């Protein structure tokens, strides 16, 4: 079947006003668009990978910091417990140091008495504020100071040192007062174990 020329003309509309082409600079815009897509994808991928690494690193550091904090806290608790133990040990040591038996001292004093001497009254009192210091108050029935010298010598043999000694002799009785302080000959603390 043949189409007439007139019928073909009907399919084509007349194009009177064709839009002018874009300037050269604006023609680069689509090209720039494609380039920007490529660059954005590449850079965003790199940034995303770096982001993931940084997140992992940050979380690892945070976990490690928390673990170190817990260990520090545990160490502090141990230190506090140890300090409490030290305080207790110091208190007990102070008590033990100021609780040295008095019986050897009493025994030494009574045994030091010669045949012509006797103890009228012997008093040993620990000082309230400093119990390691002992106030000694001795009244002896004697007629000479030689007995006192012997008694003081026996006391010194037990490593007690007499401070502020005073003596009064009169009518066959001698009064001796002193403050006794035990001194370890080796300068050690009282560390020996109980027997």
């Amino acid at each position, binding site marked *: 079947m043949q189409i007439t020329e007139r019928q073909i003309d009907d399919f084509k509309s007349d194009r009177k006003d064709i839009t002018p082409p874009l300037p050269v600079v604006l023609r680069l815009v689509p090209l720039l668009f494609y380039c920007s897509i490529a660059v954005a994808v590449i850079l965003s991928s790199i940034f995303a990978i770096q982001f993931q690494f940084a997140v992992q690193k940050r979380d690892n550091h945070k976990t490690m910091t928390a673990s170190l904090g817990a260990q520090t806290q545990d160490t502090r608790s141990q230190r506090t417990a140890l300090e409490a133990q030290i305080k207790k040990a110091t208190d007990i040591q102070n008590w033990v140091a100021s609780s040295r038996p008095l019986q050897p001292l009493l025994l030494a004093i009574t045994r030091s008495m010669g045949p012509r001497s006797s103890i009228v009254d012997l008093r*040993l009192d620990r000082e309230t504020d400093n119990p390691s210091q002992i106030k000694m108050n001795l009244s002896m029935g004697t007629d000479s100071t030689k007995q006192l010298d012997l008694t003081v010598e026996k006391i010194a043999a037990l490593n007690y040192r007499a401070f502020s000694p005073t003596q009064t002799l009169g009518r066959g009785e001698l009064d001796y007062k002193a403050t006794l302080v035990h001194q370890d000959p080796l300068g050690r603390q009282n560390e020996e174990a109980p027997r």
Partner: protein
Amino acid sequence: MNNKHIACGIVALFIVLLVQLTLWVQGNRTKVQSEASAAQDAETAANLQLTKERGQLGDLRRQSTDLIEFLRIWQPYFTTIDNPQSAEVNLSMLIKEANLVNLAQRFEQTPVKGNASIPNTMRATLTFEDDYARLLNWLGDLEVKMPTVRTSSARLSKGTRANDLRMEIILEQPLLSK
């Protein structure tokens, strides 16, 4: 402005959006990297703190070895009697066992100054009149058997009989805080 110009504008807008998106991703990365760096600094500081604390604990342990050993040896003696009732019963039993002539005895609980671990003591004020040797031997035995007991005061004077001695003593049994 024709359609081509409008299309160009839209494409340019898309380019700006892509740049903004890329900058946003970069900003997030930089922010997290800063956080990671801060976390690393915090870890370093925590590590230093731990090293310091451990060092101090080690020093304290070394310095207190003797004291802790002292405590280990002596503490059982203090914990054996830790209440006023048992202290009183124990001392009464020791007096009774010795069969000494006991003229007077008084027990009272007294506070101890400046000793937080031993806040109180059971104080026994005792008066005896008996043989010289028996009394002093008893006191010696007591001080050995009960090493924690402190003889706060002792007074010796003549007794009524020739070989007798009058002894007034104050004994203090420490009561360890719980």
